[in-house]
């Protein structure tokens, strides 16, 4: 008998009055996996996590966590999850230890184990030395780490991280991503929402791309890029390029597309790196003076662009 996924979402719909925030979304997350929900703001990622966290009931469809239906066995489901909200949801005037003790009690951590667990989790997030300090004396990054610790204290089966790196500095962001990888290495299942495609690419074993409430694609990065036939792009900046240069390459059977715009030629090919010597040689022999060459792998941006006709980065701004 096949093991049930840790998270099962099937045909999930969530409407707020006339607005459909989640529109027939389905996906599964296996035990020990980091699954990313990638999409621009307003795509329905947070609403999906809200349904899975039992914060809001679904309009229709099915959502199960650790085999428990989030509407029928809300308390059971909630006891198995750890939620790290997008905002730092802590009490600023209390110490890190007091905050963690409170959240531990809310999740039913036995009193006799509480202190030991708090010490352990503060070590994990590298804040043991600040245990007794008030949260409002912490930097933004430190608050984020305590925010994550509060979601881990009760040792959940699955951790929901809702855009945990929004508005923080690169160093803290890197620390958080490494922490998530480390937790996952210890066997924790993670559902991670983000609108930063680099994070999804770096962190997640599988990714679900959402837009306007719909799940438009699900798979590994390779599966996603291959599904749209995405290509590598060779970009060459050179003097002496003319429109004919693009025509030479378009005629090649290994090249899908080529264009010259303002002294830069872009060549799209399924295995662009293999064509690099040919491209450089051809341009040099035509008299062009090459300044730089770069090869871009196909990424989730290409997938999002292909599927929605718009850039994920544009939505970011």
């Amino acid at each position, binding site marked *: 008998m096949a093991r049930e996924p840790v998270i099962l979402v099937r045909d999930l719909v969530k409407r707020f009055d006339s607005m459909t925030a989640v529109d027939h979304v389905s996906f599964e997350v296996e035990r020990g996996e980091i699954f990313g929900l990638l999409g621009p703001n307003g795509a329905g990622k947070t609403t999906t996590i809200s349904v899975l966290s039992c914060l809001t009931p679904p309009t229709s469809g099915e959502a199960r966590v650790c085999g428990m239906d989030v509407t029928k066995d809300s308390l059971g489901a*909630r006891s198995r*999850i750890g939620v790290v*909200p997008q*905002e730092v*949801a802590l*009490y600023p*005037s209390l110490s890190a230890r007091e905050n963690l003790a409170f959240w531990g*009690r*809310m999740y039913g951590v036995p009193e006799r184990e509480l202190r030991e667990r708090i010490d352990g989790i503060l070590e994990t997030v590298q804040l043991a030395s600040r245990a007794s300090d008030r949260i409002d004396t912490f930097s933004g990054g430190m608050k984020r780490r305590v925010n994550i610790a509060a979601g881990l204290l009760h040792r959940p089966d699955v951790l929901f991280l809702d855009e945990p790196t929004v508005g923080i500095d690169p160093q803290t962001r890197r620390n958080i991503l490494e922490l998530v990888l480390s937790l996952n290495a210890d066997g924790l299942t993670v559902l991670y929402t983000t609108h930063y495609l680099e994070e999804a690419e770096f962190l997640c074993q599988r990714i679900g791309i959402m837009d306007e409430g719909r799940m438009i694609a699900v798979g590994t990065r390779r599966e996603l890029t291959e599904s749209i036939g995405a290509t590598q792009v060779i970009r060459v900046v050179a003097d002496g390029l003319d429109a004919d240069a693009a025509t030479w390459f378009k005629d090649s059977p290994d090249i899908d597309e080529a264009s010259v715009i303002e002294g830069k030629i872009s060549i799209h090919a399924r295995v662009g790196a293999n064509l690099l010597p040919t491209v450089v040689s051809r341009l040099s022999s035509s008299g062009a003076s090459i300044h730089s060459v770069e090869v871009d792998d196909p990424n989730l941006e290409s997938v999002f662009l292909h599927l929605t006709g718009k850039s994920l980065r544009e939505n970011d701004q």
Partner: protein
Amino acid sequence: MRSVLSITWLNMRLLAADRSAFFWLLGMPVAFTFVFGIAFSGGGGGDVDPDEIRYALTVADLDPGPLSDELLERIEETDEIDLLMLEGPDAGEEARRLVDEGERSSALVIPPDFSARLASGERVALLFHRNPDRTNPQATRRTLDRIVARLNVEALAAEGATEAYSLLWGDPTPGTVRRLSVGVEQFVRESWETPPLTVSVERLGRSEPSDVPAMGFQHSSPAIALMYVLLNGLMFSIMLVEERRFRTLNRLFTAPVRRASVITANFLWRFVVAMFQASVLVVIGALVFGVDWGGSPGGLVAVFAAFGAAVSGLSVLLGSVARTTRQAQSAALVLALSMSALGGLWWPLEITPRAYQIAGHVVPTGWAMDAMHALVSRGHGLPEVLPEVWTLLAFAAAFSVAATLAFRSE
């Protein structure tokens, strides 16, 4: 149960983390109790003894004769009135002007022919000016009426004695009339102390049994305690708004905690703080201001508990419907101050018009103050204040149901 107690403890810990909270919970009420206590005591810090109050009366004595002097001596002998004498031929006009322009509350004008006319047996009227905006003239007028009544009794008794003498023995000589007059005066003076007809007044309760309100600290201590339990309780609605703003309430609902537990804990910690605050203020009232809280600790606990429950329910309701901290703060202030004024916490409802007294019982404060008045001023016990306690519990139930329906995490 563990989650209810944990959330209750957390909120009290959050409150304790805010040092200024103690000032608002205890410091301000004590200061207000002192100020209101003094204001309603008439000075000296103790409650007013009506027998010790002296009122001022402006007097324009235009009569050169001896009887006006005697009248004024009689007034002074009462020890109830301080005479402020106006001199000069225009004293009568001056007295009228002073009262008319509000500089004096009342004035007595003794006409120029007062002695002459009284001596000849004619009727004489004293002129009493009073300013309608002042209340003092009522007491002054009562004292004056009492003295005039006695003088009338003496005069009428002398007339009656002279008339009786004439019927029995013919017209009296001037010397006989004088002797009759002195004798009657002597008789009335002695008899006045032990009159044949009196009204026996039985004082019941701790203060006046009727509608005379408690004053001084006996009023201000319970009133300010209720007012600050209300004001602070409603201000705690801000913490619920803040919990939503910090998203901690939202996070709480992702934990395996029942909604009912979260709401119950929000009622409970507010109630516990209200009872703590009330207890400390009662002790301070007794020890510092010498307030006699009555002989029914059970009644006192019941009233504060029912009132605290009503305030807790209203606080959670307000915290649930307010969208911003500012909204909650403004609404709390407006509600607390208007309910305090309306419910008789700033001044006794007994001195307000009937319509005001009815309006005062539309809000919990009116009922709570009634119960306090019964316990503290009249020495009643729990059975006598049960109607007020039940009414306050009805308020608590109504607010709590509304709060439960309105409670939201976002």
